[in-house]
């Protein structure tokens, strides 16, 4: 079995990153100009609280600012906040905003804007809901000061406020943040480094951002979503190109400057073109999932679910789904392998495939031969590949498989159905998450055991819920690590889901583009065009 261990992979990725970044940083950065960017998807929804779509999150990083940011080493650092303090008992947080913060409509940013924004975010986001459940009060003290008073102990308050992925707690004016969290905001006014040009927005074609002239960046060097957001561009134009070949040709011809996510099979050609280069902006990567439906037979039986772990061969999945070993790695664990809570505890079953044991577990589960409905998403290449591997392995383990082909949108509707598979429901689906969303238990939907309140598949594992609560109440890192290990052991023993490895998506750009930062979303400050 070909494999790339984690250390080798990270060393290679770091070397490649250093090689691509070194020359861009060495050049003098020029101010001004328009950057033309091909985004990963079409921006249709503008409200970062209403939806979790990554494209909306990415758009929001231009338009909005956050109280705290996450740097490239995953450390939370103040962003809109100038200084903050915690009471001795750890129950009261006080934040003071920086001077000079202004909304795009010219009004100053007030503490009340931030408290309203936090309240709206706390109604939607998983981490935000956990924080809300432990919070007694969020309130402004004066124009620039706000406090968050806990009702019960909550360790990762700053991690929640600096959360890098959807839903990010972006700040909005209070009048906009007053919109119900179940309704989309109508006005797009942020205090971020770029202003959204609504008149030039054409859904399905382009989004335009212009420099926010009044933005006051921090003095520190930029790092991830933290540090000084110094804007060097006058304008950023996002284009949506559904056809990868067109985007590739446009990049080569110089009609665009930066292509966010080229398909992996386009990358070798891009790397051979003298005027172009690639870069791994998110060293955490992306994690693939095989999710059983816990509501219906056969996977309402623990032994049948454990057969899914026994049959797992991550290398086989990654080869079929991603294909280029340079861009994937096995990762036997539920938490991102480059994240702070990576552990191998309880993951022995994921390290080595054991089909014999899988067959034995299927027998012991009392499986009656009914077809297992596997959702086969055909319009997303890597999910299609994963589903085909699952069919092979399930068959080898002794299941009868019914592969149901559908497009992604249909899959979204099907996966929400709790009906039995023969009435439109499902048994197994495949999906993926950015590693930032599976870094720790408070953001990781796969380790939730909340039954009807859990992510699709609805595992009911009360121990997991208790451990997650313990995790967010823990205030020291060693205790949190210990709890994360326990969570992983139970999640894999109960088979909440089965991870099938991690992969990395390079970004491609012309060599005259400088200063692209490492982060889970494309960032446009610090970027210039020579």
């Amino acid at each position, binding site marked *: 079995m070909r494999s790339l261990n984690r250390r080798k992979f990270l060393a290679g990725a770091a070397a490649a990153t250093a090689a691509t970044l070194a020359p861009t940083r060495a050049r003098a950065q020029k101010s001004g100009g328009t950057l033309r960017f091909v985004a990963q998807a079409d921006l249709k929804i503008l409200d970062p609280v209403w*939806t979790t*779509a990554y494209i909306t999150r990415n758009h929001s990083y231009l338009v909005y600012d956050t109280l705290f940011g996450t740097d490239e080493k995953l450390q939370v650092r103040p962003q809109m906040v100038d200084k903050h303090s915690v009471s001795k008992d750890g129950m009261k947080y006080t934040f003071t905003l920086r001077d000079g913060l202004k909304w795009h409509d010219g009004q100053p940013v007030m503490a009340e804007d931030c408290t309203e924004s936090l309240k709206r975010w706390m109604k939607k986001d998983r981490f935000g809901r956990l924080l809300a459940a432990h919070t007694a009060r969020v309130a402004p003290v004066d124009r620039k000061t706000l406090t968050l008073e806990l009702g019960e102990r909550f360790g990762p308050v700053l991690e929640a406020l600096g959360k890098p992925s959807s839903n990010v707690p972006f700040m909005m004016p209070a009048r906009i943040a007053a919109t119900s969290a179940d*309704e989309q905001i109508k006005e797009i006014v942020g205090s971020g480094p770029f202003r959204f040009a609504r008149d030039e927005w054409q859904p399905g074609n382009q989004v335009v951002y212009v420099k926010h002239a009044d933005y006051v960046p921090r003095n520190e060097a930029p790092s991830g979503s933290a540090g000084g957001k110094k804007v060097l561009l006058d304008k950023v134009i996002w284009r949506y190109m559904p056809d990868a070949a*067109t985007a590739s040709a*446009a990049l080569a*011809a110089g009609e665009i400057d930066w292509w966010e996510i080229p398909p992996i099979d386009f990358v070798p050609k891009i790397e051979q073109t003298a005027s172009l280069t690639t870069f791994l902006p998110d060293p955490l990567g992306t994690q693939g999932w095989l999710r059983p439906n816990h509501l219906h037979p056969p996977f309402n039986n623990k032994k049948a679910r454990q057969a899914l772990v026994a049959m797992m061969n991550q290398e086989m999945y990654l080869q079929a789904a991603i294909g280029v070993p340079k861009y994937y790695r096995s990762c036997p664990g539920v938490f991102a392998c480059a994240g702070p809570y990576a552990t191998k505890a309880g993951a022995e079953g994921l390290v080595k495939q054991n089909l014999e044991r899988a067959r034995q577990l299927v027998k012991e589960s009392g499986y009656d031969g009914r077809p297992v409905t596997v959702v086969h998403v055909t319009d997303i290449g890597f999910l299609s590949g994963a589903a085909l591997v699952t069919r092979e392995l399930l068959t080898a383990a002794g299941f009868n498989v019914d592969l149901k082909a*559908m497009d992604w949108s249909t899959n979204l509707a099907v996966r*929400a159905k709790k009906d039995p598979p023969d009435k439109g429901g499902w048994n197994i689906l495949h999906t993926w998450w950015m590693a930032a969303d599976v870094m720790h238990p408070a953001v990781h939907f796969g380790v939730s055991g909340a039954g009807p309140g859990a992510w699709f598949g609805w595992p009911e594992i009360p121990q997991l819920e208790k451990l997650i609560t313990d995790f967010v109440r823990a205030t020291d890192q060693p205790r949190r690590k210990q709890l994360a290990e326990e969570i992983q052991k139970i999640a894999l023993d109960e088979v909440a889901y089965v991870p099938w490895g991690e992969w990395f998506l390079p970004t491609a750009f012309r060599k005259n583009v400088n200063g692209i930062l490492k982060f889970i979303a494309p960032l446009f400050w610090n970027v210039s065009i020579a």
Partner: protein
Amino acid sequence: MLAEVLRRLLATIPVMGVVALAVFALLHVTPGDPAVIIAGDYATTDDIARIRTRLGLDQPFHTQVAIWLGRVVRGDLGTSIFSGLPVSTLIGQRAATTIWLTLFAMLISVGVGVPIGVVAAWRKGSWLDRAVMVFAVSGFSMPTFWLGFILVYVFAITAGWLPVQGYAPLGDGVGSFFSHLILPALTLSVVYMGLIARMTRASMLGVLDEDYIRTAFAKGLAPSGVLVRHALKAASLPIVTIIGIGFALLIGGAVVTESVFALPGLGRLTVDAIVRRDYPVIQGVLLVVSGVYVMINLVVDVLYVVLDPRIRY
């Protein structure tokens, strides 16, 4: 004639009503749910249910139809579930691209297809005829996306004469406008060029055997005069019909061309809306496009009368 046109215009109303109902019904039996797409990956079943209620998707089918038709009658095509923009605004943003693309493609198709069809009929059985037929068959056999990429590779990437993708409105300058439209229009036109050339040839062959054409040649009229003024005019009814159908097909065919050349047209708007199940956008676009089809058919029927005075309604 005017009365007939008015009668036909009135007749479009029930036609559009049926189209509207059919589109609405079809969408609602198609699997998929915009609420789950909006809700995203983190949504719980309760979140999805709340979104469905807010969008009115939990209402009975007949209630949803009645609400939508009520709005359409008042000229309101609704609002995109995702972007929150009025469907009429979205169509307005995209219509110019598709109209220009279709007109250019039709201009090229007719400008090349009709003359070569006439020449092929006039020189029936010659190498010229065979060459035209080979070209015609190749033209409508070629996949649009494939031809598009070949043209991009040759004229945009290798030669660097034309842009790879995108649309430039007339306001950005005539040069930029034309340079962005040439390759997509050429790509789209090749299929219909072949179709029109074959139809023109077949129709002309039927006319060229007529006695009055023989007489015209015998009188010593120039071949161009006989072919264009006498033969082509008489042979034009089937050609006009195929051009009318071609317009409708071009609007449909623009989907692929718009994707290959990243043009912000109605075709891509429709496909994107279908992928996301953005019902108001799909319904609005299909209604407008159906209206255009009906109008094109009306124009074709009027042209019959103009071209052949024997036809009366």
